[in-house]
């Protein structure tokens, strides 16, 4: 029920994001979703890709600091209030969102929300109890 996400450390200097995406492209790795967290001094790039192991290997070979973390992917209908409903469940359960980002799948009907919680197990339980669809890594790649 968890999806593996790749996180890459980014120094704030021009061209680093381009180098990462080029490295992935050269190795035919497809990026399904991404977000960049930035501070004044550094950034963290978070990626959902179709081949986590390979992505980690090639990025490390190219000198990047890479970490793998588990996140939760929730599928909601792509219409007004989709995210609000999920967040209501999270709030009710008293959970904290560390960060989140979203993308819309190819059909355009559904949106996928990627979440990192402080308590992942409790989050999964709460979301399932309220009937949300939680996607696996394979499902995301198939979208």
């Amino acid at each position, binding site marked *: 029920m968890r999806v593996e*996400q790749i996180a890459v*450390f980014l*120094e704030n200097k021009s061209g*680093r994001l381009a180098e990462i995406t080029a490295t992935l492209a050269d190795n035919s790795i497809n990026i399904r979703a991404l977000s960049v967290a930035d501070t004044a001094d*550094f950034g*963290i790039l978070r990626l959902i890709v179709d081949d986590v192991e390979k992505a980690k290997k090639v990025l490390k070979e190219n000198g990047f*600091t*890479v970490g793998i973390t588990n996140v939760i992917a929730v599928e909601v209908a792509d219409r007004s209030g989709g995210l609000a409903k999920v967040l209501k469940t999270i709030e009710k359960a008293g959970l904290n969102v560390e960060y989140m980002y979203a993308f819309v799948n190819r059909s355009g009907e559904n949106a996928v929300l990627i979440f990192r919680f402080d308590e992942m197990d409790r989050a999964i339980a709460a979301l399932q109890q309220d009937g949300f669809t939680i996607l696996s890594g394979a499902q995301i790649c198939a979208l």
Partner: protein
Amino acid sequence: MTTLYWEEEIETLPRVGLESIQLTRLKHLVARMYDTVAPYRAKMDVLGVKPTDIKSLADLQKLPFTVKDDLRDNYPFGLFTVPMDQVVRVHASSGTTGKPTVVGYTKKDIQTWAGVMARALTCAGATSRDMIHNAYGYGLFTGGLGAHYGVERLGATVIPVSGGNTKRQITIMQDFGSSVLLATPSYALNLADAMAELGVDPKTLSLRVGIFGAEPWSENMRDEVERKLNIKAVDIYGLSEVMGPGVAMQCLETDRGMHIFEDHFLPEIIDPDTGEVLPPGEQGELVFTTLTKEAFPLIRYRTKDISRLIYEKCACGRTMVRMEKITGRTDDMLIIRGVNVFPSQVEHVLMGVEGVEPHYQIVVNREGNMDTMAVNVEVSEAIFSDEVKNLEKLTRKIQTDIKDLLGVTCKVQLVEPRTIQRSEGKAQRVIDNRKI
């Protein structure tokens, strides 16, 4: 203008007379060190030198050096030559691995120190009528108290204002009529800028002269301080191991070098690589032998400061040799806002933070008048996190630990792995962008 002296006879003694005093004191010192300081006796025995071998000042070269590691190895009081009940004060400066270097003084040492410091103040034209604003830090650092006792010996009025609280310092200068300023040169520039901000015209103050030391400063900086504060800026030299401030002092008649008070501190210039004494006038590492200290005398202490000795006659009439402004160091010690910083201390801190690999680089800049230190740390997988707050927590921890150990505030910057320049497999640990 007639030159003022504190102890005219000794300060203007022909060199033959001075050297005869030095030799008598040196013989006495070597004999005492051999008898009372086992680690130094052992060093002399290794070289096969006995106190009786010292027959001329040139024989000084036969004696072994003392280095900072000797002080650290005998931490804290191992090299003191008198029982602790005769030690009336200790001072300390930062060491290379976190352990400070401790120095001790007997009652007579404190008097000697006050005396050379009074000489130094007189070199700068200060008299008992002056109001002396002492902005050197008070505490374990020798600057504050060392200067303080000298001012009292001179009979002038000391304002023990210490560092910081710049606005109050300016008010004190205005209200008390400070006429002589003792400070680090960068703090003097800070004061000047604060005055400009507050709309205080230095010309309305009584300030006449500034005595600056404890950190490297350039001739450009001297011009800037003189212009901005409307004063004459002179250089003072000292280091805690040898005594503290007052080892050497620039007089008002020359811009070239500081008179070393040679009846107390015997200087040599050596080749830092071979240890050989260099001919007069050549540039090399400055070495001191303390001729009169009781509690903590040193023979041939390697300062790691680069300078040269100037034997030409000075217009002030003092016969004591001058040392050129320090032009560099033989080691990697940095002086940041008056605090000694060794890269190894930063490494020590980083090694203490779990998961941090000691791939780091120290970048020093001078922004405005203040030195800034940034520590770049390579992010390894062990410390990397996908959450910003974890990485920020880490940089804060490193920053706090460095502040705690070294007493210097720095900016910690995380950088990508293998981005710190390496030359021939060895990382370049320090980039000093200051133009000194």
